[in-house]
């Protein structure tokens, strides 16, 4: 437990320092921007006030629209979260079976088309894949909505999640990485002595190597991919006109809306670092007894 506590405190501390660093940098860059606009020329006292607002979650109002930032940021945050988590699940769903299959069979027999497919999917840029899918779907079928349903425009918002999640799930480069990692790790673990011993006892090889061969590498890679996924989400949000954090950040940069921008950076840091903390927590559970 002490090890866990130490880790927790270390993570919190680094999160705190990172937030200070990121917001200070944003503040500085904002002041260096050319032109004259509201919010320019603020000093250190204002920065401290802003920090206090951040850590008490009283974000204040947007400079441009005058709305409460909570009502702007959190719906966008929710949309991005759905997009990101959905696409992670899709990536896992596609890549783990391919990885297991190619660990069992090797690259030579029958698994190579799937492996090649995963590499091709990972090398296509995600915006290109997005436009490709929009073109194909809107031109030939017209079944799936390619925009987010704003206001009372269309009925079921669930259907509009399908295409962006599909594109981000296939198009982020994690598919081929997961395939390669699981194929190698599972193959290594399946040949270790203790898995051979449990095979000799009559246990299933896959069951006795699932922890070390699949779950641990999968967890490590997924959580280290979160920053890249958020980056990929920015592009997909643009392609699909999706009201998420990425688009909001882009728009508020164009609008020079410093309060909103800083809240977005704050939430992004919080998200990424708590993802890392969660990863350590889960690995702590899967690797008991490790010093």
């Amino acid at each position, binding site marked *: 437990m002490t090890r866990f506590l130490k880790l927790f405190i270390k993570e919190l501390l680094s999160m705190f320092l990172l937030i200070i660093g990121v917001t200070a940098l944003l503040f500085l860059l904002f002041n260096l921007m050319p032109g004259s606009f509201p919010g320019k020329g603020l000093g250190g006292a204002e920065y401290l006030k802003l920090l206090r607002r951040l850590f008490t979650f009283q974000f204040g109002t947007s400079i441009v629209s005058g709305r409460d930032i909570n009502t702007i940021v959190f719906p966008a945050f929710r949309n991005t979260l759905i997009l990101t988590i959905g696409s992670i699940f899709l990536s896992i769903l596609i890549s783990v079976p391919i990885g297991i299959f190619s660990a069992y069979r090797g690259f030579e027999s029958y698994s190579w088309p799937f492996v090649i497919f995963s590499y091709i999917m990972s090398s296509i840029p995600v915006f290109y894949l997005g436009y490709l899918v929009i073109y194909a779907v809107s031109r030939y079928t017209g079944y799936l909505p390619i925009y987010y349903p704003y206001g009372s425009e269309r009925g079921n918002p669930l259907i509009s999640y399908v295409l962006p999640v599909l594109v981000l799930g296939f198009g982020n480069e994690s598919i081929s990485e997961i395939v390669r990692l699981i194929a190698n790790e599972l193959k290594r673990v399946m040949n270790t*002595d*203790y898995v051979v*011993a449990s*095979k000799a*006892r*009559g*246990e299933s090889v896959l069951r006795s190597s699932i922890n*070390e061969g699949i779950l641990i590498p999968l967890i490590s890679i997924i959580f280290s991919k979160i920053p890249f996924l958020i980056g990929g989400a920015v592009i997909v949000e643009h392609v699909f006109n999706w009201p998420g954090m990425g688009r909001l950040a882009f728009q508020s940069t164009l609008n020079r809306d410093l309060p909103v921008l800083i809240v977005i950076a704050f939430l992004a840091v919080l998200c990424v670092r708590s993802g890392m903390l969660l990863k350590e927590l889960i690995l702590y559970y899967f690797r*008991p007894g490790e010093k």
Partner: protein
Amino acid sequence: MDTVVETQGLYKYFYNKKGHTVIKACDDISLSIPKGKTLGLVGESGCGKTTVGRILLRLIEPDSGTVFFNGHNLTEMNEKHIRPLRKNFQMIFQDSSSSFNPRMRAYDALKESVQLYSDLRAKELRDEIYHLMSRVNLHKEMLSHFLGSLSGGELKRLDIARVLSIHPAFIIADEPLSLLDMSIQSQIVNLLLEVQKEENTSLLFISHDLRIVRMLSHTVAVMYRGKIVELAPKSVITENPLHPYTKHLWNPKISDFYVQFFESGCVYKNSCRVLHRKGFPLICSEKQPELLEYEKGHYAACHFAQE
């Protein structure tokens, strides 16, 4: 007497990357082990004893030859059909420190193998595990330790406990006494004899320790470079060994040993005393002698076995 395990003409060569034969681990191995009896397999390290054991379990595929277990031809079956049979043949692995997952607790490792073929729950399960631990003379406290933190001898005994928990009909004991000190060695030998008596278990006892092989076995097979060079009942082979290698094992002299690889002829010709005495007869460097029966149940592979 019914035979439990029988092999016929097992071959297994290991190759290097260029396809040249490097090690002949099994070279025409034919063995049979009757029910409730022990076959001791003796030989120097690297002669293929462990490979024979692993082929019997189908953990290594043989190049050719057949393995029969209770009438089932294991070499023709695929893994799916062998799995239900695996309850009946178990192996005590040579390197027990790597045959356990170091991230497991000892209790979980035993629980896993006990529950594999029985559906014991809660108290019965715990009693069974305590019973196993006391049989291999380990303390209960050890159950809560991680396997990575146990010593080699403790893991070895835990491995034996794990095999005993399955109650197999045939146990391959691959150097089960290495890493153990003398007092525990004798405990384990007594335990194996006890189990054999109670459950009528057959044993393949692989070792290089002749003292213990003589104590446990009913029949002894001597291996050299992948070949069985002598096979006889224990009393016969200890009193009247025919093959020069067996004689050497019984009465080793350090000056006899030098290792060199030759392609053709008798596998043992490099270190053979008879060869020296006879003045290097041509037949020894040209032809591998066959395993012939000289007395009833006493086989040897030497051109000069009768002298």
